[in-house]
C-alpha cells in the first residue's frame, strides 16, 4: 500500500451555507484539508455534520460559497458550468447510498452510460467483471439485490478510470454481510488501481480500514487520523 504525501485535492477555508426558506443554515464553516493521491480516505461524522456537502463540493456536483478547492493545481470553484462537467466526466467517479441506477437501463447499459462519455474508459463488460457481476449484465436494476445494484454502481464509477472515487455511504442501505463485500471491493480497487478513494460513513467501524480518517463535526474538521492499515476480510469489526 503506497500512501505518497502528494495532495490530489486541497481544500482551503471552504464555506457552504444553505438557505432554508428565510433561514441561513451554515453547513461547512471553513473547511481546510487535503486528499492525497491514491490514498483510501474515510470521512466520518454524525448525521447532518456536512459530510455529503463536503463530498459534493469536491466532486463538482455542488458549488462552494467561498474558499478554494484545488484539484491537481486547478481551483475548481472557479470552473464554468462546462468545465465542471468536463471535470466530473474525466476525473471523478461517484457511488451513492441509494445506488442511483437508471431503472430503465440494464446493468451493462448503466455502465455504458458512463463509459460512453469518458475519455479513456475501460471495457464496460470488464468493469462488470471487476465487481463480479458479468453474468448479470442483462438485468434491470429492479431485478437485482441492493448489494448487486451497488456493485453495478461501483462498476459505473470505475469504468471511466477516475482519478478520484467518491463514495457517499456506499453501504448505508446494505446489510452487514453485503456491506463487507462492497467495502472489500472498494479496498481492493484502491490498492490495485491506485484510484484515490474517499468513503463517507457515519459508521465508526469502517474508519480503521482506511489509510486516513477525517472527522467532521458541525461543518468543521475536528481531526485527522493516520490509521494502522487493516484488511476487512480478516477483521470485519
Amino acid at each position: 500500500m503506497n500512501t505518497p504525501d502528494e495532495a490530489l485535492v486541497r481544500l482551503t477555508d471552504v464555506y457552504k451555507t444553505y438557505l432554508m426558506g428565510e433561514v441561513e443554515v451554515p453547513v461547512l464553516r471553513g473547511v481546510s484539508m487535503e486528499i492525497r493521491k491514491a490514498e483510501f480516505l474515510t470521512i466520518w461524522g454524525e448525521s447532518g455534520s456536512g459530510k455529503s456537502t463536503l463530498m459534493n463540493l469536491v466532486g463538482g456536483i455542488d458549488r462552494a460559497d467561498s474558499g478554494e478547492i484545488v484539484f491537481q493545481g486547478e481551483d475548481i470553484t472557479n470552473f464554468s458550468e462546462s468545465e465542471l462537467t468536463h471535470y466530473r466526466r474525466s476525473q471523478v467517479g461517484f457511488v451513492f447510498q441509494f445506488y442511483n441506477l437508471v431503472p430503465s437501463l440494464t446493468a451493462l447499459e448503466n455502465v455504458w452510460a458512463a463509459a460512453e462519455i469518458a475519455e479513456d474508459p475501460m471495457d464496460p463488460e470488464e468493469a462488470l467483471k471487476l465487481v463480479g457481476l458479468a453474468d448479470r449484465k442483462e438485468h434491470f436494476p429492479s431485478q437485482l439485490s441492493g448489494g448487486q445494484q451497488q456493485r453495478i454502481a461501483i462498476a459505473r464509477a470505475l469504468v471511466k478510470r477516475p482519478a478520484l472515487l467518491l463514495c457517499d455511504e456506499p453501504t448505508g442501505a446494505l446489510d452487514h454481510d453485503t456491506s463487507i463485500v462492497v467495502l472489500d471491493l472498494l479496498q481492493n480497487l484502491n490498492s490495485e488501481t491506485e484510484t484515490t478513494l474517499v468513503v463517507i460513513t457515519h459508521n465508526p467501524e469502517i474508519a480503521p480500514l482506511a489509510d486516513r480518517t477525517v472527522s467532521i463535526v458541525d461543518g468543521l474538521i475536528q481531526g485527522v487520523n493516520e490509521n494502522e492499515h487493516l484488511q476487512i476480510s480478516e477483521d470485519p469489526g
Partner: protein
Amino acid sequence: MKTLNRKLRRDLQQSWKMLLAVTAVIAVGIGSFIGMLATAGNLQVARSQYYSTCRMADFWIDLKKAPADEVHRLGQLPGISEIRDRLQFKVIVDLETAEKPVSAIVLSLPAVPGTTINGIVIKTGSYFSQDRSNEVIVSEKFANAHDLELGDRIHAIMNEQRKEMIICGTATSAEFVYLTSPGSLVDDPENYGLFYVKRQYLEETFGFEGACNSVTGLFTPEFRGQKNPPILQAYADRLEPFGVFASMPRADQFSHMVLDAEMTQNRTMAFIFPSFFLVVASLIMNVLMSRLAEQQRTIMGTLKALGYSNRDLVVHFLKFGLAAGVSGGVMGAIIGFWMSGALTEMYLDFFSFPRLVNSFYPGLSFLGLLLSVGACSFGTIQGVRRVIRLQPAEAMRPAPPAKGGSILLERWPRFWESLDIQWQMVLRGIIRRKRRTFVAIFSAAMGASIVLLTFGFVNSMDAMIQIQFDKILRSDYHLALSKELGSEVVDEIRRLPGVTAVEAVFAVPCTYEAGHRKKKGGILGILPDSKLTLPTGTDGQRIAVPDTGLLMAEGLMDQLNLQPGDPVRLVPIKGDRRPVTTHVAQGFPSMLGLDVYANYSWLNYLMGESGAVSEVRVSALQNRKQRKIFMRALKEMPNLEAVSDIREQKQVLVDHMDRAMRGTAVVMILFAAVIFFGAILNATLIAIAERQREIATFSAMGYFDRETARLFFRENMLTNVIGSVVGLPLGAATLNGIVTQFQTDAYSIPAVISSSSYLYTIALAVFFVMSAQLAVIHNMRKIDRVEAMNLKE
C-alpha cells in the same frame, strides 16, 4: 448518447398514451393549418390555370355606347397591351321549363374561335358554326339546371323583341367563377344564365353596329401586378364622352374579389384556429415533460454527476418532444390533406371551375412538421428546464414536498367541513397543483371557445338570413326594370292575380364622393310608409328613413370618412350623370354591407325626377294557377330586366349555408373534442401514475374502482366546467373577430350567439368529461395494486 436513447425508447413505451394525447391535439392543429392553407393553394392554382386558359382581363370598363374604332384608338396608351371591345346586355329569358322569367347576361364573342381576352372553355357541343347567326353558347351550370340540350331553342326578350336562339354548346368562363343573380347573396348559376352569341347578331339586335358597351383589356407586364394602376383611370377618362358607367381593375371584379376574399379568409383562419391547438399542445407537453423530469430528477442528477452536460440532458428530453412533434406533424399532414380535400370539394359547390383539385403540398407539410416540432419542443424545454438547471447534488436530494399546509378554503370551516373527504382532496389537489390546474382550465377554455364559436357561427348565419329575409325584405318578388318608368307600371302589376301589395322603388346607382374618397354604390329610394322594405340594423332594430338626406350604412360612412350631417357628392352612373350634392342624415349598422336608403319622393326630387320607378316590389298570396298567370304576364313585360323570387333566394341561401356549415360544424366540434379528451386524459394519466399508492390504498380500504375514479372525475369536472365558462367570452370574442374578417362590401354578418348555444357548449363539455371518464376507469384497472402499495419513491 446511444445508451440514453435506449432509455428514451423505454420511457416512451411507458408514456406513449400521454404522448398520444399531445400528438392528437397537435395533429388536429397542424391538420387544420395545412388544410386551410392547402385549400387556399388549390383555389389559387385552379384560378391561375383558369385565368391563363381564358386570358382573363386585367380591367373592365362598362360604357353606354362607343364606336369600336375609337375605343381602340384611345386605348393606345403606354401600359395597355391589348384591348377587346364587346357587347353585353341584361336580358330576360323565357324558358318553357321555367315558370318564371329568368335573368341572363348576353355577351358577344367573335364568330370564329380565337385567343380572345375573357374567352370561354367549351364543355359540351362546339363553338359557333358558320351556318346560323343566332347560335348561342350557354353557361354550363345554367344549361344543366334547366335541362337544356344542344340544338334546343331558347327565347329571350332582347331590345324589346322576342328572339329565338339555338344552343350549339355549353361553356364556362374565368370571368364568372362566382356568379350571383341580382339580389342573391350566393353563387346562383342556375338562376342566372350566361349566353354567348356572335358579335354581329348582338350588334344587329341592339342596334350597336360598329359600337360596343364593354371594354376589357390587358396591361403590359409592369402594370399587371398593381392593384389599381392610374393608367386605367386615364383610359376611362378618355372614354368619358361615351358615358362610362364603371371602370374596374381585376382586383375589383366581383368574381375575382370573392375568390380573393375566400382565399384570404382561409389563410387568416389557418393562423388563428390552429394556434389554439398548438398552444394547448405545448402546454400539455409542458406538464407532461415537467412531470417526467421531476420524476427523473434523481436520474438527471446522477447523469450530471457522471459527466453529462445540461445540454445533453435537454437534448435527451427534446427527443421526447421530437417524437411527439414528428408524429403530430405526420398525422397533421394526413389530416390536412383530408381536410383540404373536403374543403375543396365544398368549394366546387360554390365556384365554377373547369378543374379544381386537391393537391399535396410538401413544403406546407414540412412547415407543419416544423411548427409541430416547435410547439412540442417549446413545451418540453419549458417543462424540463427547472429540473435540469439544478445542481446535480440538489437534483439528487428528494424534491422538497409540495407546498403543503392548509389552503385558503380551509379557513372557512362551515364550508370546508361540509365537504366529504374526496371533495377535500380534490380541492386541495386543484389549488396546490397550480400549473396543472391552469393548463386544465386553459385547455377546456380553448375547447369550449371552439364549440361556442361553431354554434355562434351557425346562429350568426341564421340571424343574417332572418334579418335579411324576414325583417328587411318583406316582399315576395323584386321586379327590376331596364329603364325608369312612371307609376302606371305599379298599377299594372297590382292588377295581376294574387298580388296583395305593390310598392315602387327608385334606385339610383351612383358613385359617392367625399373629399378625395370615392366609392361606387347605389341609393334605394323607398316610400316612407313602406311595408315591404324595412331598413333594419344588424341588431334587428328597425330604422325609419329620414325625409331628406341619406340613411347610410356605417361601413360605407367609415370608408368615405363621413359623419351624420356631412355633405356628400353623388355622381349617378346612368342617365345624364349630372352630379348632385346632398348630405348624410343618419348612419345605421347595416348587414348588407354598403346599402343606402332615402325617401322615395325626396330622391326623385333630388335627381330631377318625379314618380320614377326603377324597381317594383311585390308581395303576393297566390295559388299555383295564379302564380302561373302572374309569371306569364311578367314574361311578356317589355321593360323587365330581372325577376327575383325572394322566398326562393332565401331557400337557396339556407340550403347553401346548410351544405357549407354542416360538415364544417361537425369537424370543428370533433376538433374541440380532441382538445378536451387530450387534456383530460393526459392530466388524469399523470395523476393516476403519481397517485398509484393512493389509489391502491383506497382499493385496499374497500373502495370500488369507480368510487376512486370519482376523485378524478370531480377534479376533471371542476376544472373543465370552470374552463368552459372562461371559454365562453373567449369564444364570443373570437366569433366577433372572425365575423369582422368575413365582412366584405357585399355583406357583414352580425355576431349572434343564442343563449341555448351557451348551454349546449357547457353541456358538451360535461359530456366530454363523462366520456373521458370511461377511459380513466379503464386505465385505473391496470394498476398493479401490490406493487403500487410497496412503491418506493
